[in-house]
């Protein structure tokens, strides 16, 4: 049975219709046309669909729409919402953390969530934070470097 849901996505309330068993990922991608979150597996194994739910990174292919109601959903589209790329986004580009780009949005959301919680992570903490995000292209080294550089940039801006 299709039902109406009101989702709070990137600071806006969005009305949509879906089956209760549909995943948040499908609703974001298909109903709301927010296709920055990718579907690499649809089985909670790759991290390409990572979004923030009340500030915490989750794989949205595993979240059912009803469970997202009443929570703050943040997707990759919001990070440069004001037109300026977030430091994680810019550093991913500058440090060479982007190749095919398919893992990139999910990877950036995991890194962004980490920096919200822990503005000065060690490399070990960065590696742990992105360990649910598979990247087949880069070998992760340049992504770790990008997150570290972004943390420094955010830290400098704050001080």
């Amino acid at each position, binding site marked *: 049975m299709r039902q109406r849901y009101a989702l709070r996505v990137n600071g806006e309330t969005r009305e949509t219709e879906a089956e209760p068993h549909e995943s948040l990922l499908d609703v974001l991608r298909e109903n709301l046309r927010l*296709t*920055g979150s*990718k*579907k690499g597996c649809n089985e909670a194994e790759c991290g*390409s669909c990572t979004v923030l739910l009340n500030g915490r990174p989750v794989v949205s292919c595993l979240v059912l729409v009803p469970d997202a109601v009443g929570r703050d959903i943040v997707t990759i589209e919001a*990070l440069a919402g004001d037109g300026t790329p977030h430091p994680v986004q810019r550093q991913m580009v500058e440090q060479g953390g*982007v190749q095919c*780009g398919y893992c*990139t*949005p999910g990877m950036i959301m995991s890194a962004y969530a980490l920096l919200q919680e822990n503005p000065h992570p060690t490399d070990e903490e960065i590696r742990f934070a992105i360990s649910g995000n598979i990247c087949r292209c880069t070998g992760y080294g340049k992504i770790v470097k990008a997150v570290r550089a972004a943390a420094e940039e955010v830290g400098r801006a704050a001080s």
Partner: protein
Amino acid sequence: MSEDTSPETTGAYHWIGKNVTKPDALEKALGATEYVGDMVVPGMLHAKILWAGAPHGVIRNIDTKDAARVPGVAAVLTASDVPGTNRYGLAVPDQRALADDKVRSAGDALALVAAEDEEAAEEAVAKIKVDLEPLRPILTYEDALDPMAPAIHEGGNVFQHTTVRKGDLEKGIEESDVIVENAYHTHRMDHVPMEPEAGLAYVDPSGVLNILVGTQYPYRDRRQIAPALDLAMNKVRVIQAPIGGGFGRKDDITAEIHVGLLALKTRRPVRLVYTREESLIANTKRHPMAMNFRTGARKDGLLTFLDGDIYGDTGAGVSLGAYVIKKAGIHATGPYDVPNIRVDTYTLYTNNLVSGAMRGFGVMQAAVAHESQMDQLAHRLGMSPLEFRIKNCLKPGLASSTGQLMNEGCGIEATLQRIKDYMSAHDLRFNRPHA
């Protein structure tokens, strides 16, 4: 004589050697790049495939009646609906877009559905009834080499036999002070591009079939799509969409012919996006190989011979397998000067999943064998594995296994030397051979 001030000599390039930012990286980081699975066009249908799921069998019947009645279904197609040759394949056209006479691997496609939404397409796929008469599957190297075993394709299961011959093998064996012999087995690997295969096709008002696909080579796709669907080549346009990884797998046809066929039949845009499971089942993999290697060296540390056999399981289609396995054969010595060589390679059809191009292309497997042999010889001779390689590696003036004379651009010694320098700078030492 004027002084040479060209950048080649002075290294004074403006842009070569600089870390210019990739032009496509920012839009990817913003999540703005649209891969095929992100694209939507008005009136677009969604496609699903019925896969064989069984390795070998005669197709007696495929009943699509119930599937076609599912609400929202626009087309249910089988091999008899394909207007052209229905064939493709990079070395020889031995793969069917849709299986006709037989199922040859679990990854064969049997039928296609296009529907208004994915759910309807899935439901229809589930309602297709297949009557398959199972045949004994050929799954091992031994079965494939057995001339009495049933042939998967006409012409038998040994698709190709290649031979590398250089110098005098017997002489090489005689001159050897140490000989190492081993059997190596490598496994099947999947490319796992993070973007599963996808394609989007539509016929434009001028009658041209347009196909957007994450491909590694649109022109070769066109060469394969046109005859398979009985179209003139200038009526097919293939556009590389942003691609979420390929690693050799998207060299082959993936979604192209399927979406193309559905778009032709329905006259509507059709999008096909694989699930991860489908991606792991269908299309190509890395060849499993069995390699028997015997290698010799003299007391002074020089290699004397290589005597080897390489068997590659290319599955139910050759794809690029014939080249992969032939390449493994001519790279079986590794980057060393080996004066006497006998290597035979066999490209074998089986009812396993098709193997094709994957990053490393046969040399990945050969290196497992040749480098293991190198270390064992070094240990037997009491030499450092690094010094043993430096002593034997190709240098300008020496010839490869195919007799190709090395000249400029022969960098193996430089890479070995770089590792040697690294080890001494970091005070790293091998445990073996024991002093």
